[in-house]
């Protein structure tokens, strides 16, 4: 049983962005199941994706309690333009370097965001976040090891990583796209600090990790307000994949 949702404006928007991020990266990364570069990574990416989709399900569940909708309907019955994941997650699976680059940028950003939600004033979200952070630690460890490994080689692995970071760079900061009701969320104590503050912390952290490795730093987001609404073709394709079963037999249960 969950404590009655407080009438804090923007809680639904916050939950939707959190859930959509985890949902989209979970589905994207699950595409490695069966074809990862080595067996251990096949298992790891499948397990990571299962974690992310589990996180999304829990967050959609909270959102469903706030709005009175059905969690599956929120997850599967929207049109592509109605999803609110960060543009960073919208690039298609790409090669292994692209996946590691995207995961690194996302996981480090998500860690900063979760920290800002951990002592929030709405217990159901703060409690869930406490649990999520324990799992995300393993994700960060995994992707950090891989980033360093690819960056430390000379040759193709490093070249591909740099190409991936340059492609993702312009969208790297979109995890921190300002929310339209950010003021009430901060005033209500759900979110510790505004997204712009969190983005500054995240950039300082990523810059400190990238500089010694000689990796390209992400430029500022061109139009910060469009970071969660401008989806590209890769997402439309992914949407077609993850809604295919649901659309083929609406309302089916098993």
């Amino acid at each position, binding site marked *: *049983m969950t404590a009655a949702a407080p009438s804090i404006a923007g809680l639904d928007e916050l939950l939707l962005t959190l859930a959509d991020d985890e949902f989209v990266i979970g589905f994207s990364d699950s595409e490695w199941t069966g074809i990862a570069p080595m067996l*251990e990574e096949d*298992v*790891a990416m*499948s*397990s*990571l994706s*299962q*974690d*992310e*989709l*589990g*996180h999304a*399900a*829990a967050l959609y569940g909270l959102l469903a309690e706030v709005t009175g909708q059905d969690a599956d309907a929120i997850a599967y019955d929207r049109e592509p333009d109605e999803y609110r994941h960060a543009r960073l997650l919208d690039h298609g699976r790409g090669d292994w370097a692209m996946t590691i680059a995207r995961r690194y940028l996302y996981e480090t950003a998500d860690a900063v965001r979760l920290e800002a939600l951990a002592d929030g004033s709405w217990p*159901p979200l703060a*409690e*869930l976040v*406490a*649990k*999520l952070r*324990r*799992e995300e*630690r*393993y994700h960060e*460890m*995994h992707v950090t090891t891989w980033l360093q490994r690819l960056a430390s080689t000379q040759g193709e692995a490093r070249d591909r990583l740099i190409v991936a970071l340059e492609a993702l760079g312009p969208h790297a900061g979109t995890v921190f796209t300002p929310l339209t009701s950010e003021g009430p969320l901060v005033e209500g104590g759900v979110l510790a600090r505004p997204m712009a503050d969190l983005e500054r912390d995240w950039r300082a952290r990523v810059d400190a990790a990238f500089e010694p490795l000689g990796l390209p730093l992400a430029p500022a987001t061109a139009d910060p307000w469009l970071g969660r609404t401008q989806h590209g073709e890769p997402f439309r394709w992914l949407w077609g994949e993850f809604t295919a079963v649901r659309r083929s037999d609406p309302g089916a249960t098993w």
Partner: protein
Amino acid sequence: MIDTGPSEADVRAALAAVPDPEIPVLSVVDLGIVHRVEVRHDGIDVAILPTFVGCPALDIIRSTIAEQLGERFGRPVTVETTFEVPWTSDRISAAGRAALREAGIAPPVDPEEMRCPFCDSADVVMDSAFGPTQCRSLFYCRGCRQPFEALKSV
């Protein structure tokens, strides 16, 4: 005589016979996921803590608990999941840790303290933090040259 129904202790004792579906050598009590048991005059409420947020075994655990307690005590049972406190791997009981080792799965410890569940060697390496289920990692023992699984420390 008035039927006072089962006590909380009766219900907890019955839960000690409900196995975890993924690691059946462990009961849900040994696994440390039973958070709250409340006996009302018209039913029994149980709250459990997911080991992992997306654990796919949760639905089976809930329905098994409801079924077994319902049969045993003849009253309606509700089982809810909660994150009120996070499940952590140190909630696994001493008996649970022994049962895991017996089954060839290393109980959760910090990686540097890991020992092989087969030969007790400390000469082990982590192959991958991720294993066949969300809660397990893969290790290799250089002592007895066996791969083994360990529960993640969370």
